[in-house]
């Protein structure tokens, strides 16, 4: 297992190096310059020139790349060109917001998706199956931001059940340690702050979680339908076991294999969705920040963030493979 992990981590290196080169070239191929973006309407040709000289944007791309790599090796990811914030610290300021949101979305998708998928998959073609599958399809075809806006309109504005935006209520005093607001509330025992953070996560979590929910429902359904037809399930039934044992030990433990992979594959999807959800709900996470970084040519932020994301993506995939081994003994040995 350890060797497997190490090997996989080693395989990540060429991908990340390749990505860093590709990114570097690609980002610099974007028309428009960071200097213009930094200065906005106040830009004069002289001011742009001075910024380009100061930040080295005028140097040959290759030289810029080596400077960049040189700084990377010293652990320096640079500063945002927009506000001068060190990229790493901004990332750790914002990443918790996105993680929290993605976690809420996944939680929603998993907690609801697996039972729904199980019920649908137990009797494929039954009315319950039809209801569940068509509802989940509706979730897939509704644009994320449209769903987010609708949810906000109905549940935050008309019904006033949930807050309209942001991560926390400014009126509630909260101490922030990790920037995971729910966690912070729990650590500091500021229960009202923790609850407030949870309440703020519900609508965005649902909006972002709907597509993963639909996907998890469909995968679980297919997997359960498959497993239900397996001989070992028949064996389990022939043993006269408790239905809960059959469901958990014999059906779900096998059906979970493809589901786990699917959940792992949601990372990219969640991040794309986070760009939109964070915009609608005014959450200061990396999704929206990255979008702004692209539109404003924030080279250091783009380079570092996309690398971080690729790294996280790879690590999640690795975790998926490892968890595969935990669930499936056949993988564990080979």
């Amino acid at each position: 297992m350890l060797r497997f992990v190490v090997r996989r981590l080693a395989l990540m290196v060429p991908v990340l190096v390749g990505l860093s080169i590709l990114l570097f070239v690609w980002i610099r191929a974007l028309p428009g310059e960071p200097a213009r973006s930094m200065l906005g309407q106040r830009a004069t040709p002289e001011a742009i020139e001075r910024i380009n000289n100061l930040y080295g944007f005028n140097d040959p791309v290759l030289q810029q790349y080596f400077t960049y790599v040189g700084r990377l090796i010293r652990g320096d990811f640079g500063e945002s060109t927009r506000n001068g914030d060190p990229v790493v610290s901004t990332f750790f300021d914002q990443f918790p917001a996105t993680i929290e949101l993605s976690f809420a979305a996944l939680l929603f998708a998993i907690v609801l998706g697996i039972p729904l998928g199980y019920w649908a998959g137990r009797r494929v073609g039954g009315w319950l199956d039809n209801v569940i599958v068509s509802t989940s399809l509706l979730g897939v075809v509704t644009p994320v931001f449209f769903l987010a806006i609708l949810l906000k309109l109905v549940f935050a504005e008309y019904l006033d059940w949930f807050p309209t935006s942001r991560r926390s209520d400014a009126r509630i005093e909260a101490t922030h340690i990790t920037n995971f607001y729910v966690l912070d509330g729990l650590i500091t025992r500021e229960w009202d702050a923790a609850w407030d953070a949870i309440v703020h996560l519900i609508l965005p979590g649902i909006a972002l979680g709907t597509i993963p929910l639909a996907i998890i429902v469909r995968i679980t359904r297919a997997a359960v339908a498959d497993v239900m037809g397996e001989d070992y399930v028949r064996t389990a039934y022939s043993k006269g076991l408790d239905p809960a044992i059959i469901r958990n030990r014999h059906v779900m433990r096998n059906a979970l294999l493809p589901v786990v992979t699917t959940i792992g594959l949601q990372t990219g999807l969640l991040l794309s969705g986070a760009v939109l959800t964070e915009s609608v709900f005014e959450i200061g996470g990396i999704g929206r920040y990255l979008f702004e970084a692209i539109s404003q040519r924030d080279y250091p932020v783009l380079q570092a963030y996309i690398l971080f994301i690729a790294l996280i993506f790879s690590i999640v995939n690795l975790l998926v493979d490892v968890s595969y081994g935990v669930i499936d003994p056949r993988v564990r040995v080979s």
Partner: protein
Amino acid sequence: MTMAPPLMSPSDPMLGVDPEHGTSLWRGAWRRLRRNPVAILGALLVLAFVLIAVFASALAPYAANSREWASEVTLTSVPGPREGNLLGIDRYGSDLYSQLLYGARQSLIIGVVSTLLGLVVGAMLGILAGGLGAKVDMVVMRIVDILLSIPSLLLAVSIVAVLGQNRYAVMIAIASAQVPVFARLLRGTMLSQARSDYVLAATSLGLRRRTIVMGHVLPNSLGPTIVQATLNLSTAVIEVAALSFLGLGESDPAVAEWGRMLVAAQDRFASSPQLALWPGLAIAVSALGFTLLGEALREALDPKGRR
């Protein structure tokens, strides 16, 4: 001890190459499709969508992007449904109903072109990877890995940033997100087909690799590809809207494009919800059509529902 009598069903895979495998697969799929209400609903939605897109100019009471009633639109109010304007006026002063119909055309064109583009490029990568041996496979798949590790929407955003705001940029941006999907799919099916018994049989018959790939492997990869393409059409329709939401897309704000109409209606959601609801519904329904059809196709082509 006695031997078992040779009781073997004709469907038994051990019987080896089934010459009619391909055609019977499609015939069976067609039979299953015709009987599947989901497929019929999906097909009807798609058909309606395509017909509206093709005959938009005949169906719509007014010209596209006419902005005929622009003078009646203020920053805070938009005329609602009334005589002559079934659904009211859009925020740029055109007939909302007509704009919705013309919007189908935009969505269809963007969806089809971007999916075809993604398919062609993705297929080329996938065939390179799946058909040309381990080294090529390794390199191509690493590239695909890299593409996959960038969130697709951000990739699309950066492509529009390079190519500027126009229809073609949007198409290429959406296609780019589809390339890795198709590449993986084709590579996967090609590799699994390549290991299958009938290819083994064909190889043992001394057929050339290219003949096998072109004659056997590709046709058999077709099913999953068509399924994926149908599903991607629905993603494309939604993705156009997402790009519009981020302010990227057609240059003309008044143009009949659902995503754009939906996004433009956002700030008037409270006062004129119809401006957002109709295009939102149009996006969802057309995407639903493609999704239903794609899902039904998937089930028809692979009745066991395995992936």
